[in-house]
């Protein structure tokens, strides 16, 4: 690790995490658990619920989660060994400029879009929870909840983990309790087992859908796993949260739609008379998930732009853009939320393969083709470290697998899975052939500055 460098940008956005900043496995586990305990996971489960019976969906969710746990665990391990953010790690398989562009697509813009959508949802929720007051007007509520969601992100990772510790355990307890209460009220296991889906699909399609839902989160897992005390801590925490909570939350969404006709468990909780409790619970869930979206976005912008703007500046800029956009949507003016959903769909076809290209480079190409067996020495960071400007093998693999992902549905495959598999294979094939044939695939040279940029 060597001598500690000055963290110019904050939260070690461009530097390796020093010993004193490392966190426990529990802190990472609770942080990811807070991220996954959001409405999106449960809504995702709802889509599965209309496509399969209870037993088939359960098996698909377990298998899909095992795949997510393994792939995300491997990416987390890269973060654990290198102590760098996802965008720093990307400098090797994609080159320095490639990492900047792909980091912006993955988190810089993607994270901000998620932030915008969840801020708008919070505004909708507050205005429906407490109608009739000026401060609960949908536009006003969207603005102040956006500002509220920016606060922990502005403070950084310590504040984000503190908020997760405060709200995460409560979420889990109440999600399971609320789900159990709602399911019991709507008929319970006998009704669940008797459920027949309107449009059943194959178990393979269900598994790929499960993987697709959390594929983006899986790619950026190193942003957190680099904080682990041991290199493997992040991977273990990731796998544990996936197997314990991603599985159950997705199943709650699926079972909810089978029993109540709605994937929204908060709505089901409202239907059975839980009143403001369900809505308060939902709002807090949004709050705890959304700070993370903004935080990863700021890390990606720092890696891409550098200069004088720190991680906090980027948090404020992206937070302000997201909040204003969400307020405009709430006002019924400007770009509609559909633009966000559509753009989010495009990102879902562009991002997952970035993760498997990183896995292929770190775990196969470097040790078995380049002969770099020591995992701690496969990637070198620090002042004077040299990166290519563009790694052609990584960029071409990403472009082709992205094109394949866009056409995957026509082939009956989920885009995320097409991207994951094709990106992995293409990178190994292209990089290995280029290396063996002596073809230069790493173009240009970028020397890291003392700031890490």
């Amino acid at each position: 690790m060597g001598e500690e460098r000055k963290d110019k940008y904050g939260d070690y956005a461009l530097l390796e995490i020093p010993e004193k900043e490392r966190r426990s496995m529990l802190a990472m586990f609770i942080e990811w658990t807070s991220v996954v305990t959001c409405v999106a996971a449960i809504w995702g489960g709802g889509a599965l619920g209309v496509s399969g019976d209870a037993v088939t969906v359960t098996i698909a969710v377990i298998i899909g989660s095992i795949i997510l746990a393994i792939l995300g665990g491997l990416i987390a391990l890269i973060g654990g060994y290198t102590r760098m953010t996802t965008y720093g790690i990307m400098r090797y398989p994609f080159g320095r400029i490639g990492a900047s562009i792909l980091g912006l697509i993955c988190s810089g813009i993607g994270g901000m879009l998620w932030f915008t959508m969840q801020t708008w949802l919070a505004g909708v929720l507050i205005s429906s929870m407490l109608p009739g007051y000026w401060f609960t007007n949908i536009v006003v509520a969207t603005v102040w909840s956006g500002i509220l969601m920016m606060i922990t992100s502005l403070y950084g990772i310590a504040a984000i983990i503190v908020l997760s510790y405060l709200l995460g355990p409560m979420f889990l307890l109440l999600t399971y309790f609320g789900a159990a209460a709602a399911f019991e009220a709507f008929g319970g296991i006998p009704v669940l087992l008797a459920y027949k889906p309107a449009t059943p699909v194959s178990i393979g399609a269900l598994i790929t859908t499960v993987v697709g839902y959390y594929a983006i989160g899986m790619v950026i897992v190193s942003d957190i796993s680099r904080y682990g005390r041991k290199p493997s801590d992040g991977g273990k925490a990731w796998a544990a949260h996936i197997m314990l909570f991603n599985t159950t939350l997705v199943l709650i969404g699926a079972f909810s739609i089978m029993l109540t006709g709605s994937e929204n468990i908060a709505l089901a909780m409202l239907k059975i008379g839980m009143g403001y409790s369900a809505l308060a619970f939902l709002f807090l869930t949004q709050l705890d998930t959304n700070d993370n979206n903004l935080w990863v976005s700021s890390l990606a912008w720092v890696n891409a732009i550098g200069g004088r703007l720190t991680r906090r500046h980027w948090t404020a800029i992206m937070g302000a853009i997201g909040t204003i956009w969400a307020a405009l949507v709430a006002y019924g003016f400007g770009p509609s939320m559909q633009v966000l959903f559509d753009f989010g769909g495009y990102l879902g076809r562009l991002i997952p393969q970035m993760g498997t290209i990183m896995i292929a480079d770190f775990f196969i190409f470097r040790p078995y083709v380049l002969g770099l067996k020591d995992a701690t020495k496969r990637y070198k960071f620090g002042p004077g470290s040299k990166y290519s400007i563009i790694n052609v093998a990584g960029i071409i693999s990403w472009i082709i697998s992205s094109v394949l992902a866009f056409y995957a549905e026509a082939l009956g495959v989920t885009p995320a899975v097409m991207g994951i598999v094709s990106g992995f294979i293409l990178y190994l094939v292209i990089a290995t052939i280029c290396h063996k044939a002596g073809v230069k695939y790493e173009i240009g040279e970028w020397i890291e500055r003392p700031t890490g940029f």
Partner: protein
Amino acid sequence: MRLESGLRGPRGSEKMSEKISHVKSFALRMNLIIAVLAIISLLTTIGTNYRAQALLAVIVAAIILTVIVTVIRVKGASDPLLCGKAIVQGTWFWTSFSLSYLIMTGSPYFGMPMINVAINFLIGIIIIILGIYTLLRTKKETGVMLSI
């Protein structure tokens, strides 16, 4: 770390073990208070319907389990950092669970009488205040960060 600075040599290690036992006894005392408060909250469900009893049983079980795990970890901790880590993590968990008292008990679904709701609300507030106090004091005495 704060606790380790200036505690070198035989006298230093004596002072350190004195300090650890002080931190441990503080943690055990706080966890005992939390367990008692949780049990009192469970008693408020006597005579109420099964939904309220189920809710409180789940919250109290989660808090008691956290207290037990925390006490075991604190007792087994051999150095101030491990002790502080166990206290901070356990305290976050029971503080978080106690938010359920504020969010859930007043819901019409559970049909709890207003007086019981008020008592549970108060218990929730007390646990949160004790949680904040425990966290800040543990941070001060052991130097363990709150986002450990």
